[in-house]
């Protein structure tokens, strides 16, 4: 068995669900039979403040803990992480390993400086732009589903977790025993639950967003060869 190790650094701004996304990806990997760990990093918990979360994914036991200094993959949840420097890591690609992947939630390419372009080119970085917020607004009718689009896209790029495990992880997050969350996250949870009359509707909207971004990455030719679209049936998933 070949050793697979992915170190993912997610960066975004408070309220976007960066930490939630890392929990969902990580738990999805564990559900699919792999190994994963994560650690979030943020200052005072408030809207629009910088947030980073780090996810380790492997098909072997993971020993390392703490933040990821040298990631293979970067997920940028909001353009202002780059354009306004809303980040703990400046410039945002610091530490990216050779031939790493940068996935940015933006409809249009970011205007980088010459130095930034050269440094990313030296690292052989591949940059993928994904209109995650637009997808969330179009499909789930709320930008709060941006993190779902990012999760779907990451799963497609890595080829894991498979879509079914990812869906099970999302279901676990919203209707299962879930995880211990902070006061701020609890408030967002109840805000989004109010928006959707029933949790079922919220789940369905999330699943559709996941599927759409997964498909988007496949259509663009950016997905891993293992990435397969399957029909998610919420009823058959037990958590």
């Amino acid at each position, binding site marked *: 068995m070949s050793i697979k190790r992915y170190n993912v650094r997610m960066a975004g701004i408070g309220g976007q669900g960066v930490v939630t996304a890392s*929990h969902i990806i*990580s*738990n999805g990997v*564990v559900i699919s039979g792999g190994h994963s*760990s*994560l*650690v*979030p*990093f943020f200052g005072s918990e408030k809207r629009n403040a910088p947030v980073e979360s780090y996810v380790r994914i492997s098909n072997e036991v993971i*020993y*390392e*803990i*703490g*933040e990821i*200094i*040298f990631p293979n993959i970067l997920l940028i949840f909001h353009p202002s992480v780059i354009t306004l420097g809303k980040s703990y890591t400046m410039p945002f690609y610091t530490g990216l390993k050779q031939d790493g992947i940068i996935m940015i939630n933006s409809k249009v390419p970011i205007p980088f400086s010459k130095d930034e372009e050269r440094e990313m080119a030296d690292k052989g970085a591949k940059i993928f732009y994904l209109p995650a917020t637009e997808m969330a607004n179009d499909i789930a009718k709320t930008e709060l589903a941006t993190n779902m689009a990012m999760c779907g896209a990451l799963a497609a790029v890595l080829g894991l977790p498979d879509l079914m495990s990812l869906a099970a992880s999302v279901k676990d997050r919203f209707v299962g025993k879930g*995880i*211990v969350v902070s006061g701020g996250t609890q408030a967002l949870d109840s805000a989004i639950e109010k928006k959707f009359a029933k949790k079922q509707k919220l789940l369905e909207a999330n699943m559709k967003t996941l599927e759409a971004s997964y498909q988007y990455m496949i259509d663009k030719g950016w997905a891993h060869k293992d990435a397969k679209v399957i029909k998610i049936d919420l009823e058959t998933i037990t958590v």
Partner: protein
Amino acid sequence: MSNLDFVAEGKPADWVPLGDLQKVVDPMEMFFELPRKTEFITGSEAARESIRRMNVDIAISYPITPQSETMQQAGYLYDEGYIKDYYRGEEEIGVMSAMAGASRAGIRCLTATAGPGLMRGMEAIASWPGARTPIVLMDMCRVINTPLAIQPDNIEMSFMLNTGMLLLHAENQQDFYDYPLVAAIVSEEVDVTLPCAVSVDGFFVTHARGQVSMTSKDYKLPPRDGWRSAVPAMDNENPPARLARDAPIQKSNFISYHMHSSWQQEVFAAVERSAKYFEKYLDGCIEVINPDAEEFLVTSGAAVSQSREAVRQEGEKGRKVGLIKIKTIRPFPTRQLIEILKNVKRILVPEFNQAGWMHKELCSILYGKCNAEIINGPRVYGGMTMPTEMILEWLAKHRK
């Protein structure tokens, strides 16, 4: 508290605390024999599950990040009836003093704090060992110096090294479930009767998920027997209760100096006597990987996790690097360390603090006992983690 107190707090008249339904099992059975189930949970949740099985009589704390999540969970345990009494203190000196009082009454006491909170409570904490008060202190390490930060840096552990406290250093979520249970039992052994701190590097462990294998929550440790103790418990039924342990210990004349010094000798002798129990309950005070290697990483806590990955990656390149995980900082496993390290070539000491307290500990016990070069690092501090790449770099640099 009696059931009536709980009823007064809003529980139904027929309410039974869930802790009362748990079955008491022998510690060895709990630690090694009962079947276990693995769950993917955060360090704070692992701590909660540990407390649930600890048969805690009273838990008192004051919130401080990154400890707050654990003690918030302990509040739920109180509500469910797994902890008999629970309250939030005013601040840490008050909390740690209340712990001292509660332990003198002969019951099992638990508290938790982090970084600056530990420093604030230190006056009372330093007085615990001499008072021979078994207490479990969970310590979620956090930066203590300015600039302020809430990230893990374990310099605070160095302040406990010479207090007479027992001190364990948990590596991961699994340890943070197992060690507090062991701490409770060892601290109450008659020939120990000392408080025990279980430190863990905060956030990276407390706020992150890991695999934790646990026994069923239907079982709990035996309760503390207050009379089975190096010094008698305070008798609250027959006033006046004696607050000071022994009147002649108060500094007043020449005799008291001798008494005070012999009292301290006895405290530190008790620390050493605890080693045999930790050996038994922790399955060794140290863990060794590649014992026949010529170069070793020797460390504790989260730095062990990073070192494991470094050892694995070196192994993939065909190089054998040894690793010693030190579980008990007090008692320090001096004899075992000398035995393994006496003939090695090089020792690196990865640490998550600026001062390098573990490096100093190792230098002091290995001086004159081994010819190895003891490298002063690698270290990270201020709350960042140590990337595996940094350990690999240091190994390569010193091989040249």
